[in-house]
């Protein structure tokens, strides 16, 4: 029995020795991932930073009385860091195209509102299902959005010009800015 054990041990050692003697050669290469902070915000419908125009058609007195609401508009943030979202209009007043002269001055901040109806950013929103104004001063409406590749949210606009303004087309751009923390 001892002889068998001894023989087995010798065989194992021999096998290990033979295996250890297999010549080998190693080569190595350093791999660097050079990460730069990156963020973008786009409209989901056209995967672009410029969304499709939103048109409010005021055709009846009820439209003027009640105001109009847009269809939901989904946006998406991609960021490798947490972020805030802010909003502003491109100008304090709508630009006017129409027949009235001089052009009427419609202040954006008292007419155009927005709210967030869906929030998948992981952040906290001031306008979560609650309308708040948009004007030419940039203000932060969402804090601490979480980094990710599909941090989406949905907004709805509301326009309430009242009965003060004559017919015509009143235009402003709304600018959203996503900023890394």
């Amino acid at each position, binding site marked *: 029995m001892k002889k068998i054990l001894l023989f087995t041990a010798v065989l194992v050692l021999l096998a290990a020795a033979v295996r250890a003697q297999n010549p*080998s050669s190693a080569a190595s290469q350093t*791999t660097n*991932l*050079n990460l730069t902070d*990156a963020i973008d915000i786009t409209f989901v419908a056209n995967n672009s930073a410029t969304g499709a125009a939103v048109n409010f058609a005021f055709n009846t007195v009820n439209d003027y009385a009640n105001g109009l609401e847009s269809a939901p508009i989904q946006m998406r943030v991609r960021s490798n860091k947490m972020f805030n979202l802010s909003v502003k209009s491109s100008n304090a007043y709508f630009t006017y195209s129409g027949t009235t002269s001089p052009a009427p001055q419609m202040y954006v901040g008292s007419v155009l509102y927005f709210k967030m109806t869906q929030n998948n950013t992981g952040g906290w929103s001031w306008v979560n299902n609650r309308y708040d104004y948009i004007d030419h001063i940039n203000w932060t409406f969402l804090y601490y959005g979480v980094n990710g*590749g599909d941090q989406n949210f949905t907004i709805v606009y509301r326009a309430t010009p009242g009965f003060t303004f004559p017919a015509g087309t009143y235009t402003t751009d709304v600018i959203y800015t996503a900023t890394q923390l």
Partner: protein
Amino acid sequence: MKKVIAIAALSIVGFASKAQSVSSTATQTVNLNLSNAIELTFTGNNSATGAAVNLAFNTVNDYANGVESAAQQLKVRSNKKFGVSVKTSAANFSYTGSTTPAPTMPVSGVLGLKVSANGTGGTIATPFSATAYNGLSATAANLISNGLNGGNQTFSVMYEATPGFTYPAGTYTVDVVYTATQL
């Protein structure tokens, strides 16, 4: 008749003398003492230490889609059939940057490799392939099986990194170690 016999005897003596010509031979043993030898190098610099591969993530699309390296060619010289294995030097990337504490990015799930060309005569070992990226880790995995002996047995690899949107800016580093072993 006696004279004829005498001449014949002389002739025989003459032949006997010729058979005794002095000669000498010399022989020499030539031994080729071959030891098994194998070497693995990067053809780009003919060195066992390849040039650093830098994968730059500058846009969100880089983060979303991952970034792929150029092909890196390696060469094996071996007098026997061989296999090649691959692993990383550590389970996690080391970090250089401004974030504190340093983020921990695991190699597994982030760094992948494919064999974009194989001129070793061997086969690409599963799960690696020529078309799809497969993950690397700190555990050695077979990359090439049954490579044939030869002086220019080359293969090329490409890397892909997909860190996702989880990590802050900085440089994340790990070494990829290839080992060619004779069978």
